[in-house]
């Protein structure tokens, strides 16, 4: 269960995992205000990628990533939607 230390690597691996099989992959977000930390997990029940943080600057990145994935899921197959991580 790889835990990523850098956001860059995590978002690239997570996007790849989702695109490999969109129906299988899911994104889980866990927020604890009491401890002040946030954890995002992307898994397809075989591979599991995790990124944890307690930094406020990561909230925006995680929230943007979450929204990007939502858009990917909702977009129709005919359109080739690419994410702008690069």
């Amino acid at each position: 269960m790889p835990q990523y230390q850098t956001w860059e690597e995590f978002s690239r691996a997570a996007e790849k995992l989702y695109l490999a099989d969109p129906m299988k992959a899911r994104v889980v977000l866990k927020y604890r205000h009491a401890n002040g930390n946030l954890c995002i997990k992307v898994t397809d029940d075989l591979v599991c990628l995790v990124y944890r943080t307690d930094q406020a600057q990561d909230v925006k990145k995680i929230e943007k990533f979450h929204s990007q994935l939502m858009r990917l899921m909702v977009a129709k197959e005919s359109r080739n939607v690419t994410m702008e991580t690069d």
Partner: protein
Amino acid sequence: MVLLESEQFLTELTRLFQKCRTSGSVFITLKKYDGRTRSIPKKGSVEGFEPSDNKCLLRATDGKKKISTVVSSKEVNKFQMAYSNLLRANMDGLKKRDKKNKNKKAKTAQ
């Protein structure tokens, strides 16, 4: 599991965040959804079922209360704006990296 309309889901999600401010976690799950309402049978033919491609399922829980909603491409724009604001407004208990930010600002300025 309560299935709500997008707007109501956002209201309930805000309430979940507020409830968990002193203790507890908020779990949010996002998954692509093809609109099926019945399980896939092991044997026998799959009934005339049109998998739709433009929906996703959003679930949220605090460990006790569960809520969910389905977002389709038609609502995604409006929903996403409200949802992003909600997340940013509520996930505000994290540390601010002041020292490292100053270093970064100095570097980018040069």
